[in-house]
């Protein structure tokens, strides 16, 4: 099915999944604001035990549509450990024939042996944190791999039999030239991955990158990023990739299920320190700190740190906020109709940022999506 098809986007609302957060990284990248730890590989064994305990303590559910291992850097764990955790998930919930079982990997960790071991364990999708094919850009992003690691990783994953291979690329790093970005895109396309995620470098609060910019280092430039996005989009379309969300492109049949599930407000359980989950009417998150997380799980408690109950209206706003990131857009529904009547919303329609064909609303200028999201969040619940 085409990644941008409406049926697929809507079907994902009924999918369920699990997410496993592996917090270990060899070195923390300057732009990263995820829940990660550096230099605590001695905790890996404890982590594997704890996550399995957390999974085992969960009451049963339906067979899953999607399993995702993210991080952090899941590929820092030995494949046996990853497989063990996956087995725990399988025996607790069960899988379907087409369950997507995805893992994020850093190219420098990857090997043919690892690929084969993961395939045997049941993984069928891998997403490489490639970021760039320019050694200079990789260095300024604090990444530890070389461009050739990416090539080798994709090749060995394909040989081992991964059903879907994805590359993450990052653009708009200060100092990255248009030519460098163009070359990265070309090299990525040449590897014929099934899926590509293109992320504009973003300055998150509290990161080393944000501090260095405050101290005077150059910041990413909005126009530069817009140019690079447009250029890449055109090139990828040419190569047969279909954009299905702001930053995601895939060949037909290769849209990422875990992503689709998230944007459709599907339910998922999160395992591991700092993992997030979403059940029916609330979102929750696990304890961030490794030791506190371990302690909770080993004492037989749920390692939940907090949850946010959502009113019906908040869920409705969120449906638009997330769903409008997709090319498939959303059914107008109650919030969509309110938006079309609202002053702010009307301006967005007038500026052709939003388009409404009578049933569905879509964002026509994906690079301006936050303006839409803010307008949605500004709607008063009384509007429904």
């Amino acid at each position, binding site marked *: 099915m085409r990644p941008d098809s409406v049926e697929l986007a809507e079907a994902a609302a009924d999918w369920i999944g699990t997410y496993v957060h592996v917090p270990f990284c060899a070195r923390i990248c300057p732009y990263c604001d995820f829940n990660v730890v550096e230099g605590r590989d001695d905790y890996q064994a404890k982590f594997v035990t704890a996550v399995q305990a957390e999974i085992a303590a969960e009451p049963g559910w339906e067979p899953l549509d999607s399993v995702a291992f993210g991080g952090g850097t899941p590929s820092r764990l030995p494949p046996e450990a990853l497989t063990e955790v996956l087995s725990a998930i399988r025996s607790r919930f069960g899988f379907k024939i087409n369950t997507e079982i995805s893992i994020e990997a850093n190219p420098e960790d990857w090997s043919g042996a690892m690929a084969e071991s993961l395939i045997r364990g049941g993984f069928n999708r891998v997403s490489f944190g490639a970021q760039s094919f320019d050694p200079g850009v990789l260095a300024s992003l604090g990444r530890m791999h070389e461009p050739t690691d990416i090539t080798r990783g994709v090749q060995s994953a394909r040989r081992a039999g991964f059903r879907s291979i994805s590359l993450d690329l990052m653009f708009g790093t200060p100092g990255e030239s248009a030519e460098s970005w163009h070359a990265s895109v070309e090299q990525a396309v040449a590897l014929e991955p099934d899926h590509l995620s293109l992320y504009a470098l973003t300055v998150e609060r509290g990161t080393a990158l944000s501090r260095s910019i405050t101290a005077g280092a150059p910041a990413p430039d909005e126009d530069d990023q817009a140019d690079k996005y447009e250029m890449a989009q055109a090139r990828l379309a040419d190569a047969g990739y279909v954009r299905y969300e702001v930053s995601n492109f895939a060949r037909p049949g290769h849209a990422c299920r*875990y992503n689709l599930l*998230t944007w459709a407000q599907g339910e998922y359980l999160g395992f591991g320190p700092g993992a*997030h989950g979403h059940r029916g009417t609330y979102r929750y998150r696990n304890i961030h700190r490794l030791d506190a997380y371990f302690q909770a799980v080993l004492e037989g408690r749920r390692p939940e740190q907090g949850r946010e109950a959502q009113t019906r209206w908040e869920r409705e706003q969120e449906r638009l*906020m997330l769903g409008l990131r997709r090319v498939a857009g959303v059914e107008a529904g109650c919030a969509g109709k309110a938006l079309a009547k609202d002053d702010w919303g009307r301006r967005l329609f007038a500026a052709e940022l939003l388009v409404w064909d009578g049933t569905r609303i879509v964002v026509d200028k994906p*690079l301006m999506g936050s303006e839409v999201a803010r307008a949605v*969040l*500004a709607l008063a619940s009384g509007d429904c």
Partner: protein
Amino acid sequence: MTSVSVRNFSIIAHIDHGKSTLADRMLERTGSISERNMRAQVLDSMDLERERGITIKAQAVRLDYHASDGSAVVLNLIDTPGHVDFSYEVSRSLAACEGAVLLVDAAQGVEAQTLANAYLAIEAGLEIIPVINKIDLPAADPDKVAAEIALILGVEADGVIRVSAKTGDGIEELLDRIVRDIPPPTSEGDELRALVFDSYYDSYRGVVCYVRVVDGVLAAGDTVRFSATAERHTAAEVGVLTPLAVPVAQLGPGEVGYLITGVKEIDRIRVGDTITHPGQAAVRPLPGYAEPRPMVYSGLFPSDGDDLERLREALEKLRMNDASLVFEPETSRALGFGFRCGFLGLLHMEIVRERLEREYNLDLVATAPSVAYRVTATDGSSFEIRSPQDLPDRGKIELLEEPYVRAMIIAPSEYTGTIMELVQTRRGSMDHMQYLSPERVELTYNLPLAEVVFDFFDHLKSRTRGYASLDYEPGEYRISDLVKVDILLNGQPVDAFSTITHNEKAYLYGKKMVERLRQLIPRQLFDVPIQAAIGTRVIARETVKARRKDVIAKCYGGDVSRKRKLLERQKEGKKRMKMVGSVEVPQDAFISALRVDTET
């Protein structure tokens, strides 16, 4: 108490020449008060004043003095403000006095405001006692300063008293001279006539009037009549300030004190009014003082339209203690409902705005300050406009006149050339020039008020390294080649940015505004042209290019709540935007764009 033993006087001095210190010393010598901090509370009680070093409200203190010849005298020291903007307050303080101490710093010499105020005092018929202060300073040059004063006032240089308010040197002599030279108040009859020379609002007591009894007796319990309003009130309390308020049974002719009637609304009491007893035959009102005349007008608008009522109430409260503040409702297409306010000058405007924001917690947008222009229309009618919006189309204007002022500048003579240059860029012309000494010169110019009122003083100071002082008084209206410059956002004029300016300066204004706005207006969903225009002729143009990227790159399972919070925060930021047509303009942009720049 008879009026013979009373002396009413003010101290006229430039800021920092030592007026407060001298007042302190006088209070001490007369045993009126011992702690300095009492004065800090009483004479200088507003925070803003202390920060800016300006005395805004004139107040009065009574000193009981035993002169060297043994006689007991009551000295009423009436405080005067020291900034150009407030010169009308000086005149109303002077109206309650028979004499003034002209205090000049021995190291600085005479400054323009001191001189201007001295002239006001002379015109009001006051006895002037020239005094040189800070003679203890190593840099003091009392002989030179005495010569300056002698030249200006036409008195003998050796008659100028020399004191040090710091050491107390010469204070006795000064007090004796006050008793000797300043005439005691005289009265013309027994029927009550008292001048309200100031008032303030006290939240417990209501309106407190400062009064100077001229004729007759004002006693507690009396029914009194305010001539201007024809209202009758009971004198609930009369008293004197020592500087603590001390109730007394009555105030006799020539005496100065306070009066509380229980009236709560300050606008029911007019400063300058004459108080009498009801039933008196036709009373000749006392010569009050120069009416406060607003020089600068600006629109004040609440950032949040819901605050309009609160703004009105706050302005009304401020007017209770500041009769010079005037306001009337105004409507702006860009800014909504607000008030057109008249101020004595830019400093006054800033003080009012700061007080509204600080004390009343209001968030305000102020429009470009404007002076009052006089229009003669083609149909023969003539009227005054206080806002560029009120200017008729060019075709309907026969004549447009603007107010001029006579500006007096005192500066070291070496700066004459550079001052001349500055004045020329401000369309001014020299009236006359006088050397106060070989090194110091007094220059008098005729200048358009609009050119003086904004940043002239800042430029003057920076060009003369702070040595020049300035004072000005209203002059006549003159015909000028004036035009209205409009600023258009996305083709729509923004009334808040319109200004009236001289034809030759229109281009500069337009260019500056469109450049500023280009930097202040965030990129929008579409290109926003910013134009400056005179009528339909565009004189400057800039474009704010459309925003191209405003999206969260990653939004996955772990992020949903966090990203939502981020967007909610950004949304709150949007609330601080005003829609001008279809363009979002940040609140601050109005303030920043209209900020009067002080760079040279």
